[in-house]
Structure formats: structure tokens, C-alpha cells
């Protein structure tokens, strides 16, 4: 899993590199575009994900201690928190489509910054979109873990699948920890 996560670092890395280059090139457009982000939604989502990482840790611990009920409970909460994240993200996307912030033919933005703001939004949708896909996969993995735990395949001796799945979930969480300030908090200290 560590090797796989290395590949994921390089995968997302390409996008972070692209982001840094364009942010350096178009600082004021990025500030203007970032102001349009729904910060409360992003903040709640950050809290949701961090909490879900906590429940994952608790699940791993429960698995290693052979506590089946606790394990199932924490896995279920993790999955629910994942859905909450996706739900809030969906709401954000729906609002942003309505405001014509999705890049392409119907994109509308303050004319002073329009083309560069469109790049910001392209990056935003691409990066959060890829992140969301990884979240969906993560929820799927957790669901499989739930099923394995229900069936009794996970025992005190054989709890490594929970640990490995946990690693993946933590990674997806960490990607969000980087995405959130870079997308939502650009220039927020500037008035």
C-alpha cells in the first residue's frame, strides 16, 4: 500500500505543480476566484474528513483488539462521514454550476479576471473531482471492510486489511488537507 500511495503522490503531484505554476502567474485572478468558494462548506468538509480519519484509527485499534462491535461501529461512522463529505461537495458543485463557474462555454466571471479565473476553476473542478473519485473508491473499500468484519474474517490475528485500508483513507484525507487551503483560502487575509 505504501508503494501504491507513492504513485498517488506523483499522480496528485502533477496537479499541484500545475496549480502552483498558474497561481504564481495569475495571483490576483486566483484571489478573486477563490473568494467565490463556499468556505463554510469546505471548512465543514475538512472537519468531517479529519473526524473520519479519527474513526478509522479507532476502527484499526478495535480490529487489533478483536472488538468486533466497535470495529463495525467505527467503520459505519467512517462510511457515513464519507457520504456527508460527498453530499456537501455535491451541494457546492450544484451551486457553482448555477453561478456559471464551471469552465467551458457557459462560464461567466468578472471580465477583468475571466480567462485566468477559468483556469482556477478548471483546477478546482479537476482536483476536487479526482479527490471525490478517490473518496468514492475509499467508501467502497470501507464497505468491503465492513462486510469482511461482519462475516468474521477480521480477527485479532488478521486485522491487516483494516490497517491497509486505513492507510488509503488517511492519504485521501491528507490530499484534502492540502487542497482546502490552496483552493478555498487564497488571499483570505487580504481585504
Amino acid at each position, binding site marked *: 500500500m505504501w508503494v*501504491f500511495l507513492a*504513485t498517488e503522490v*506523483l499522480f496528485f503531484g502533477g496537479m499541484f505543480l*500545475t496549480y502552483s505554476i498558474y497561481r504564481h*502567474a495569475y495571483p490576483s485572478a486566483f484571489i478573486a476566484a477563490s473568494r467565490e468558494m463556499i468556505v463554510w462548506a469546505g471548512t465543514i468538509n475538512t472537519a468531517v474528513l479529519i473526524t473520519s480519519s479519527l474513526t478509522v484509527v479507532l476502527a484499526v485499534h478495535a480490529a487489533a483488539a478483536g472488538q468486533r462491535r466497535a470495529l463495525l461501529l467505527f467503520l459505519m461512522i467512517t462510511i457515513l462521514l464519507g457520504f456527508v463529505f460527498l453530499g456537501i461537495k455535491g451541494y457546492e458543485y450544484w451551486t457553482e454550476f448555477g453561478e456559471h463557474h464551471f*469552465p467551458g462555454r457557459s462560464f461567466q466571471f468578472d471580465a477583468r479576471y475571466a480567462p*485566468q479565473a477559468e483556469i482556477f476553476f478548471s483546477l478546482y473542478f479537476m482536483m476536487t473531482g479526482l479527490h471525490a473519485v478517490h473518496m468514492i473508491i475509499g467508501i467502497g473499500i470501507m464497505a468491503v471492510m465492513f462486510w469482511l468484519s461482519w462475516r468474521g474474517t477480521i480477527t485479532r490475528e488478521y486485522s491487516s486489511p483494516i490497517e491497509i485500508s486505513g492507510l488509503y483513507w488517511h492519504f485521501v484525507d491528507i490530499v484534502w488537507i492540502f487542497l482546502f487551503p490552496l483552493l478555498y483560502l487564497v488571499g483570505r487575509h487580504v481585504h
Partner: protein
Amino acid sequence: MTTSHLPAHHYLNDGYGIRSWLLTRDHKRIALLYLAGVTFFFFIGGAFAVLMRLELATPAGDLVSDETYNKLFTMHGVIMVFFFLIPAIPAVLGNFLIPIMVGARDLAFPKVNLASWYIYMLGGLFTLYALFSGGVDTGWTFYTPFSTVSSTTNVIPTALGIFITGFSSILTGLNFIVTIHRMRAPGLTWSRLPLFLWSMYATSLINVLGTPVLAITLLLIAAERAFHFGFFDPALGGDPVLFQHLFWFYSHPAVYVMVLPAMGVVSELVAAGCRKPVFGYTFVAIASLSIAILGFLVWGHHMFVAGESVYAALIFSILSYLVAIPSAIKVFNWTATMYRGAVSWETPMLYAYGFIGLFTIGGLTGLFLAAVGLNVHVTDTYFIIAHFHYIMVGGTIMAYLGGLHFWWPKISGRLYNEWLARLSAGIIFAGFNLTFFPQFVLGYLGMPRRYHAYPPEFQVLNVLSSAGASILGIGYLIPIAYLMWSLRYGRAASANPWGAVGLEWSTTSPPPTENFAETPTVTWKPYDYEHAVSAPEGHVA
């Protein structure tokens, strides 16, 4: 000469029927599934090359339309790079040999291995679909904004097909890394590993770290084309050169994915062909790792005239010279291995010697290209085409064929016809040089690449090249014939027909499904011919 018989139970007769192949977890059967796949794609890519060289025999664009020609060279590149050169040696020879060479029953994750094959085939079929439903004409390099804005062909399906296949490389690389780290037999320390394993390990590092960058780059192209994002389109504030940086950051290490396994094969062939250890084992092993690491630092040498700054160009130039040194070290060590060897002239060794010579020429022309002032004149011309074909065809494909012939008795339990094999090796060598050497001259004259019509004074050299291509094509067809023939009618091979040293030669030909009757313990240095048990059998059929 003793007559051999096939063992009673081996991996090929351990289950019959299509399900036993399509649902196998045996790394050896998966290797053969890949063999079928890569051979299939090789001939499709080769067919496109034949059409291209036919067109180029005359200066006017008279055989196919310009749109068709543009699709031909694109698809030749895409198929040969992603569906033949990158998987061939790792997925065929690597899959077959790595568990046996480490003394294990199978790879670390056999089911993932099978999944890798399905992913490879899925990506390949996707790409073939893109091909047959109109083709793609962007060049295998997909430069923007042409590929995202201007091209009217199937860019997105092709990009997605390559994206899917990339996961095959990543998962295979992962499998190999874990296997080599965790599943070595007792006594098999890192310094006793055959050099093929060192090469495969270095290759797997590149596959695992580099391919994801290609993945994101392809996704960005697809998204830009589908949604009109503006990452690479200047009209929307984007930067086309950014695409080139992202693309080459993967695609340069990719060429080392194509050549490192070949070098690993050559080390094995030269050791067995001279019945002595590879000279400078430690240096060759470290050279493999150095090539993998340095290979990630030189991507900008594809962009000297693309608009990167002078200082960036100079840095990439010096790093490109650094990465040439480990390759040179390997060539010198292989040559030194032949000194005072007991040198064989059998087919696998002929391919190995061909590799060393042709790779040297290809590599030396790399020195021309790393000199920035000279690169300006020859980049984007036939000089570049000749350079990389010397390495990928004169190098990798020769090593692949050499390896196939060397391990064929182990894989199939049969001996092939040695005279026919030597004949094809000769035809391939001659055809290859006739095809590609004139292209160096054409390139310096200034004939640009990706042209299907050209000024008349370039015709004679083009005709020579096309003539060579037809000879080369015939040369590749003959092995198909005698290798397939040997499966049914070839003489049975003994466990060690070459008298070579290596764990794979200590088990039967073909091996049993679990590879070894019991886990071996390794106590000898690599290539320890002093204590070799078997003598080679001449087996000219």
C-alpha cells in the same frame, strides 16, 4: 547428446481449457498471455510502419492522404511504445522469470498479476477501438494546443486507453518490487541476485513513480478537450509548454523502462554465452539504479527548442551527459566479459552481441543530441528517429528476441531450429541497419520528422530505408514460424540445455506450476561457472 523428455507434470499441462488460462494465477501462464498480447500489438504497430515506409519511398504524398499518414505515424508510436516496448520484457520475461530467479513459487500478488493483464488488454482494446473508429493524428506525444483544440480525431478514447493500460505497468511494478524485497529464497542476498533482477527492480521503480504522472497528464488532456479547460491553451491563459514538461517528465523515464530490462537480459545472455561472470557485477548493478534515478532528471532535453530558458537547457544538457555514463559502463563491462570467455555463437548470444553494438551506436548519437548547440539543428528531424530506433529496435527488440530464444527451452520445453534462428538474426541485423542508418544522414540534411512528402533530393536515402524495412519485416516473421513449429515438433529440451548458471536452470523444462519441488537455498556467487553442474548441449536441429 542425450535425448530429453518433457517432465510428466509441468505448468503447461496443469489444467486445460480456456478457463484454466483466463483465470490462471500462475505467473508463467500470465507471461504467455502477455506474450500473445504484445505480439499481437507488435504486428499491428509494425503494419503501420510498413505502410509509412511504402509511402516514403516516393517524395510525393501519393500512397495515402496526409490525414491518413498522420494517423499512421501516431498509431505506430502509440502502439509500439505503450503496448509493446513498455510491457514486453517486463511482462513476458519478467513475469516468467522473476519468481523462479528468486526461488519463489509465484509473485507476491498473483491475483493482482492477472488483473494487470486484463487491464493491459482492456486499455489496448480501447485504443484499438479509437483506431478503427477513425484513428488519432496528434503524434504519440499529444502536443497541445493541437491535441486539445485543433485535432478532429479520437484523442480522448486514445488517451483513456493509454491511461487504463498505465495501471497495468504500475501494478506489475508494485508486484515486482514487493517480490524482490520479500520473497527471495534463503541465502539469496542482494549481492547474489542475477543482474536481470537488478534491472527489473530499477525498471519497476520507474514504472511505479513515473506512470502516475503520465496518468494525470492524459486526464488533463482529456478534460481540456472535453470541457474546454484552459491549462494548455494560450487563448484561455494556459501554457502549451507546461504540457510538454508534464508529458516528458514521464516519457523520458519511460524510455529507460524500455531499455533497462533489455540490458538485464543482455547481462544474462553474455554471462551464459561466455560461461563466466559478468565483469564488474557491482558496477553494472549500481549502473542500473543510477540510470533509473538520473532518468527522472533529464526530461527537458526533449525541449531545447521548445521555449525553455537557456539556463534550464544547460542544466538538462549536463544531466543528460551524466545519465549516459552508467550506460557506457555497462557496455564496457559486457565487452570485458567476452575477454577470455568461452564464447558461444548461438542465437541468443548473437542477439546479445548485436544489442551491444547497436545500442552503442544509438547511445553515442545521444551524445550528439545532448549537445544543445547541435541539438538545435537535428531535433525534430530523422536524426532523432534514427537515434531512438537504434536503441529501441536495435537495442530492446534484439534483447527481447535474444531472451525469448534463450529461455524458450525453459518456457516451452522445446528446442527451436538453430539455423533458422541464426538466419533470422542475420536478416534482422542487416535489415535494421539498412532501414535506420540512412536516417541519420537524412536527419542532418534536414528532413523533418512526421513528413509524408519531402523534397526530391531526399529520395534515394528514403528508398534505402524502405528497402531495409521490408527486409526487417521479413526477419521478424520467420521466428514466429519456427517458434510455433517447435511447440509441436521441436526436440524436447533438458533442464539446462545451455549449461548456464541460475536458479531457473535447476528446475525442469518446462517448470512445474509451483516452480520448484522444494524451496532452494542459495550459497553460490552469481554466475559461478566454476561450479557449474551441467555442460551445454549443442542442439542444432
